[in-house]
């Protein structure tokens, strides 16, 4: 299969960056998108050129490390997948594939396609936990949790923090990520006691990290590899309004 990769190359955050085109003809349709990039990098090494930097880890869609903007969509042409789950058969023979890093002020480019997503870590650090003693696992039946609540919490906790929601959002808003991280704790009895504090602090951190407002375009839930529902954002808004009105 022969395709042309048009890839964003940027030496460092202070570098301006530019697109570079690479024609490749030695890839098969069975290759994953990242394997095609690996293959391209191998040939760059053989030519003595610098390799294209991109994030990846598990390559089975669960770690949230990979993630690039491919042909105008976060993680490529399919909805609700990670970049590593994308295969070259999704592209046509001879196609020009434009590959760009996530674009958001809160996600500065480190090199080429690698962006700094530590703003997400700081949002988690501001309240995405429960205050409990560590040690041996507590008795599982001492706090009963209904099946529906447990399932719902798991659906939200599925967020892998990949940043596709921010990348695709016209306002670079982190509302989907932050709401998933708030709600999966707030819905459980262990997280409920600190719910007001959590929602206030995490949303405040989100704003400090320079993410934009949520316009409910719904693009984030289309691109989210974990199918996190946009209703989470509404739930976060509800909890936040409640916390602001009744605090103290």
């Amino acid at each position, binding site marked *: 299969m022969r395709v042309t990769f048009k890839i964003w190359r940027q030496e460092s955050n202070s570098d301006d960056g530019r697109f570079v085109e690479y024609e490749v003809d030695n890839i098969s349709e069975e290759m994953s998108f990242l394997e095609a990039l690996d293959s391209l990098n191998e040939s760059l090494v053989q030519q003595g050129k610098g390799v294209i930097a991109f994030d990846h880890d598990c390559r089975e869609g669960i770690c949230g490390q990979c993630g690039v903007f491919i042909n105008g969509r976060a993680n490529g042409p399919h909805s609700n997948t990670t970049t590593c789950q994308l295969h070259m058969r999704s592209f046509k023979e001879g196609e020009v594939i434009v590959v*760009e890093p996530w674009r958001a002020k809160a996600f500065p480019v480190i090199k080429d396609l690698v962006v700094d997503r530590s703003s997400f870590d700081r949002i988690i650090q501001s309240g995405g936990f429960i205050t409990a003693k560590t040690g041996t696992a507590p008795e599982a039946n001492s706090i009963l949790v209904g099946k529906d609540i447990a399932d719902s919490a798991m659906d939200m906790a599925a967020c892998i923090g990949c940043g596709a929601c921010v990348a695709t959002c016209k306002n670079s808003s982190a509302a989907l990520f932050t709401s998933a991280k708030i709600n999966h704790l707030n819905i459980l009895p262990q997280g409920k006691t600190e719910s007001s504090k959590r929602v206030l602090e995490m949303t405040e951190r989100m704003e400090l990290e320079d993410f934009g407002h949520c316009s*409910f375009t719904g693009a984030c839930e289309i691109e989210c590899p974990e199918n996190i529902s946009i209703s989470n954002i509404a739930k976060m808004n509800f909890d936040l309004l409640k916390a602001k009105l009744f605090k103290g």
Partner: protein
Amino acid sequence: MLFVRKNIMAFTGLFLCIFLVVHLGGNLILLLPSETAHGLYNSYSAKLGGNIFIRVVSIFLYLSILLHTVYAALITSKNNKSKGKKYLVNHTIESSSWTSQNMGLLGFSILIFILIHLSNFWWRVKLGYGEIVPLDSNGLKDVYLITTELFKNPYYVFIYVIFIIPLSMHIKHGFSSAFKTLGLYNLNYIRKVSIIGNMFSIIILIGFSVIPVAVYLRGL
């Protein structure tokens, strides 16, 4: 700040939706046979101007338009600052509706229309600028005459019909979004609210575009 701003947008937006219902309801009088409509419309206008409750509400109305506009500007400016470099290729249309991506542009068109609309009626009837408003046989300001005169001009009919389209689109996305901003998170209710929003936007589209066309056709 993010949420305070969005909540103000949602509250003022929904208040403006309620206003639109009342505004459309009152203006449907214009579709009645002209003899009935003439007297009824003028006495309706006079009652609106004279009622203290309506006067108080109208202050909220002006304030809502102002706040909705000012906060839209603030929010857009913050969003623009949050954006990184522009994507070379961005197929947003595959993941979201055009309307939801262009609420600012639609809102701006509505603002232009509001200015045209105010200069046609409010400026003259309420503030008394421009040509003096004639009185009808009951001694009331003849707003019916002004309206029918305006819609004798096909350009105005065209402007009024065309500018209702962005309003209708803005409501289609804005109505359900406002509820989500205010915290309506139950998926079942979200679906119902968005159906209501869609129906509301269609009613606004048809209702407000039929009036100028009907008035124009009657005046031919």
